[in-house]
């Protein structure tokens, strides 16, 4: 079992890199040669990832959500899986490389540093924690995808304004579609992040008697949540659109990343679990 985990741990980054390669090749060449096969490869990568997560859960007797590197591998899966669903629903296949590369980053970091810890603290075995982490991860996947589409929107917007009709212009979907994809991903991310926060608030006093609302992780998460809330409400009520909302989405994503890094690697937060 341990051997399977090790093999898959090495294999997963390679599979993500391979999938990224095919998506990037199709984007670069625009030949649509791998239109269907790249989707199949992404599906297989996700399938291997599911097996990896299941084997870890069974072998280590806990779901892989007890430390930041386990969270990273789940996040890598969640981002690519969300993209896979989005690609199936919208049939927009040209934006894959920009999303899958984020999964590669998370998976490579995870594969390099992950440990097979069998002992976990009692508080991390709570069912509420499972729901909290699941909703937070899907929420973060949503805002990651929103930020990527936001970034692509800004790039295409700039290219069209400056009469640059290169790869970005030729391969990406139109501005309205990119804005819509960014917006809906943000809405899904926001709803799930709200769920994670609500569950966290309920569960927090029970699990950590010494918690603090000034904890950097909580401040970071609230800031991200508030930014997305402002952006979504402004767009919904027609006050903001386009670049402003997209900027907010990208800033929210950057704060989320910085907050995670700061909480887990630099500060001593109750939210660090390893």
């Amino acid at each position, binding site marked *: 079992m341990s051997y399977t985990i090790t093999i898959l741990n090495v294999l997963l980054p390679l599979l993500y890199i391979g999938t990224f390669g095919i998506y990037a090749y199709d984007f670069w060449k625009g030949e649509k040669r791998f239109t269907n096969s790249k989707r199949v490869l992404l599906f297989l990568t996700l399938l291997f990832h599911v097996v990896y997560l299941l084997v870890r859960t069974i072998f280590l007797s806990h779901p892989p959500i007890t430390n930041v590197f386990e969270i990273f591998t789940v996040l890598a899966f969640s981002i690519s899986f969300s993209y896979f669903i989005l690609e199936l629903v919208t049939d927009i296949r040209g934006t894959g490389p920009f999303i899958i590369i984020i999964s590669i980053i998370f998976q490579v970091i995870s594969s390099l540093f992950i440990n097979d810890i069998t002992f976990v603290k009692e508080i991390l075995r709570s069912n509420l924690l499972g729901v909290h982490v699941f909703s937070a991860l899907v929420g973060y996947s949503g805002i990651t995808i929103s930020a990527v589409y936001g970034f692509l929107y800004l790039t*295409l917007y700039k290219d*069209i*304004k400056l*009469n640059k*009709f290169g790869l970005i*212009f030729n391969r990406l*979907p*139109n*501005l*309205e*579609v990119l804005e*819509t994809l960014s917006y809906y991903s943000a809405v899904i991310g926001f709803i799930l992040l709200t769920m994670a926060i609500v569950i966290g608030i309920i569960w927090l006093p029970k699990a950590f008697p010494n918690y603090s609302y000034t904890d950097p992780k909580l401040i970071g998460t609230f800031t991200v949540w508030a930014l997305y809330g402002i952006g979504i409400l402004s767009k919904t009520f*027609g006050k903001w*659109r*386009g*670049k402003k909302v997209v900027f907010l989405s990208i800033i929210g994503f950057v704060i989320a990343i910085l907050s995670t890094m700061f909480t887990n690697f630099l500060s001593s937060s109750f939210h660090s679990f390893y």
Partner: protein
Amino acid sequence: MMNILAVSINHHTAPVELREAFHLNSDEIKNLIHRVKEELFSEGLIISTCNRTELYGIPKDQKLDVLDIQNFIFKYKNNKEVKPENFQTFASSEAIKHLFKVISGIDSLLIGDNQIYHQVKEAFQTSEEMQFAGVLMKRIFDAATKTGKRAISETEISEGAVTVSYAAVQLIEKIFSSISKKSALIIGAGESGELAAKHLKDRGIGRLVITNRTLERAEKIARELDFETLPFNTFKEKMHEFDIILSATSADELIITKEDIRNTMKERNHTSLVLMDIAIPRDIDPSVKEIDYVFYHDIDSLNIIVEQNLSKRKFEIPRIEKIIDEEIDTFIGWYNSLEVAPTIKDLRDYFENIRAEEVGKNKNRFSTEDQEKVEIITKRIINKILHQPTVGLKKINDFGTTPEETAVKVNVLRDIFGINHNNKEEKE
């Protein structure tokens, strides 16, 4: 080899005035087909577009050559300015190859223009209606349309906009997701404005309004294309209602200022606005591009798209030439198969005649009983002699022999046995 001839006056060989002089409308084509049928060809094809007029045909007389056809056209059009160098001439498989190049769009002035595909198809239909298309021309038609279809579906020869007005539409589609929910204002009812309006209508624009200094002209186009008009002196008050404004007037000065667009954007609550200025000199102040959510493009920026797409299309030419070569091989293979079967028959007839003649001369030397045996034995000898050549001839078409090799082998065989009496006439 097949005897098909073609003569073409086109944009490679002749200036526009000459091409215009040799252009034929549909009545002229029908009239010319009557004349050509009488004097030159047993079957054929006449194509005439704004960039080319071409005659293809199977000569009635084997001695007829391309110069005769050129002279026929000189006389028919009676144009004194045209010279022999204004014509391209083709014979045999080169004529077919030229037709395949034409239908696949790689010989067009606007490379990849798929309008030519439909024009060639119409020309074939006219030939059929006029009983000018026989077995060979019908087969050529099938092969040509297959080549044209393959060029469109297997390559990107027709991808991307290659005219300014169509590039404007392509750009609009890169900004808005559903053009059917958008509204457009066309300023100027000249040729460019009308063409752009047609493109937008073809792409299913939600609302289309045209304004022009001379409202009658705008109303005429609006009636033809079924859209609204707006008086020129009030269009600025209504600009905020439109997502796309395309200007193509012949005005000498700017007609839309940055301030006009600023006000329009305020009224639009800063929703995206596309401004296409395809007029020379320009109608819209170019500094409007500094305003957020205003996508301003003039003829130069649209030309960048056109040039890029043309380069991409040129890049596809070798792939299409490969398709043409494949289809030419298939066609010539079919054509040569018409020659193989008669050759086998001719060869067998030739030997049978010799056998029958010799047996006839000598049959009195044998008894009545033996004559029957001689008949059987000599037939068996002939069959044995001809077995290998017959199998060999049949194999020619089956085992990867090129059409040219087939033709050479068949002709050598016919020459050796002196059976070169022409059965092509029957075929054609």
